[in-house]
């Protein structure tokens, strides 16, 4: 796979997937469906009302880890970015978590009595992890994202009511940044518990699939946090300052 390749707007959407199939879930998060025919990236994006430049920035960054046009991404509307992040939350909770849980359930079924205790420990660890993930996402969906939408609206109107200024002073994005605990650390721990310490299981293919899934999710979560920390937070901070100056 040629990772130095940069996807462009006039490339065929079908070719994008042929060149890097790991983009399949990423494209799915934009709610884009298959059956593109020979349509270009731009044409498909227009059809689904997705900003093609934002779409390209995301898939290029995902395709090549060294390519992250943070400056460029900052030019996109926060509403677009938040919609993407929100879809990613759903993707984790509705698709990835059940997939991983299924694999763990299979391990529980197939395990020998001797190893059952250990698999149960992993199951328990993962359940707690999912609970934390839910709390983290719910906080973003219910508190942080609505706040960001308000800020962006006020900044576009160039006329911020006092209430917005008050909101900024009471709970600037900085507080969220401080609370932004790392979902990644626990995931790495889970991987290492399996790779380094789980006694051999008799169902090797399931444990292999489980590990592969954990690596994939980890990558997704890393990208997700990167977007939040390096793109969303700095951009919101900038808007907050601008709004506070005008009132």
């Amino acid at each position, binding site marked *: 796979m040629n990772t130095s390749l940069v996807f462009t707007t006039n490339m065929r959407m079908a070719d994008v997937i042929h060149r890097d199939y790991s983009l399949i879930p990423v494209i799915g998060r934009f709610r884009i469906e298959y059956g593109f025919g020979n349509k270009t990236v731009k044409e498909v994006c227009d059809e689904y009302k997705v900003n093609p430049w934002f779409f390209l920035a995301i898939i290029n960054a995902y395709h090549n880890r060294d390519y992250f046009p943070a400056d460029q991404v900052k030019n996109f509307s926060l509403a677009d970015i938040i919609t993407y992040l929100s879809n990613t939350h759903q993707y984790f909770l509705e698709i990835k978590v059940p997939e991983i849980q299924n694999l763990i359930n299979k391990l529980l079924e197939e395990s*020998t009595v001797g190893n059952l205790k250990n698999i149960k420990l992993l199951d328990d*660890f993962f359940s707690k992890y999912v609970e934390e993930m839910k709390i983290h996402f719910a906080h973003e969906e219910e508190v942080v994202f609505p706040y960001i939408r308000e800020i962006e609206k006020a900044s576009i109107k160039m006329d911020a009511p006092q209430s917005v200024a008050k909101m900024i002073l009471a709970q600037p994005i900085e507080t969220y940044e401080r609370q932004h605990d790392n979902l990644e650390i626990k995931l790495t721990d889970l991987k290492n518990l399996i790779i380094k310490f789980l006694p051999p299981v008799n169902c090797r293919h399931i444990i292999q699939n489980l590990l592969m899934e954990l690596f994939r999710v980890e990558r997704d979560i890393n990208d997700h946090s990167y977007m939040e920390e390096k793109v969303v937070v700095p951009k919101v901070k900038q808007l907050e300052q601008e709004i506070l100056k005008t009132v």
Partner: protein
Amino acid sequence: MNFPENNIKVIVAASHFLTRLGIKTLLSVIGIQSDYSEVDSLEEIELAVQPGMRSFLVIEQNMIGSPGPLLLEQLVGKCPLCKIMVIGDMVLKNCPCSQFVSNNDNQQQILEKFQDFFFDQENKKQKTTGQNMLSERETEVLKEVARGLSNKEIADKLYISTNTVITHRKNITEKLGVKTVSALTVYALINNLIAPEDAIK
């Protein structure tokens, strides 16, 4: 290759005489000479396997039928020192056996499985799962972390300074590759360093 301990017993449970004879021959090929007995019915197994005695049970799957795993589990419950090898068509779900010989295995595979089974390879693997990665002191600190004690409490309990506890924790994390208290607790439980009821919830 030396047989690990004296005072062990090998029980071969198979319904057919030829099978029993074959297993007996194989045992002498790999150098197992110990207290040996043959049984050809389920009831006899329980009599042959004595609690508290280290024993190796080689059993044919068709002797135990479909409730097999449950029967074997009860047996292991009564005689925890009994190690089981099952010979049959396919691995039964949740079977507590530590080795499985398939009817389709070739000579080489069967030989290797018998050697693994009797020469304790599996047990060795399980015991070394990371435990020797930590020093004795680090293991002590890890146990207290998994019990939910704070750095200060650990320091007081082990008569060391809080800074030393922090250094130990840093080294533990580096060696094991796990950072969070909950993952360290899972590690401690997998390796039986603490009792499940003592673990931090």
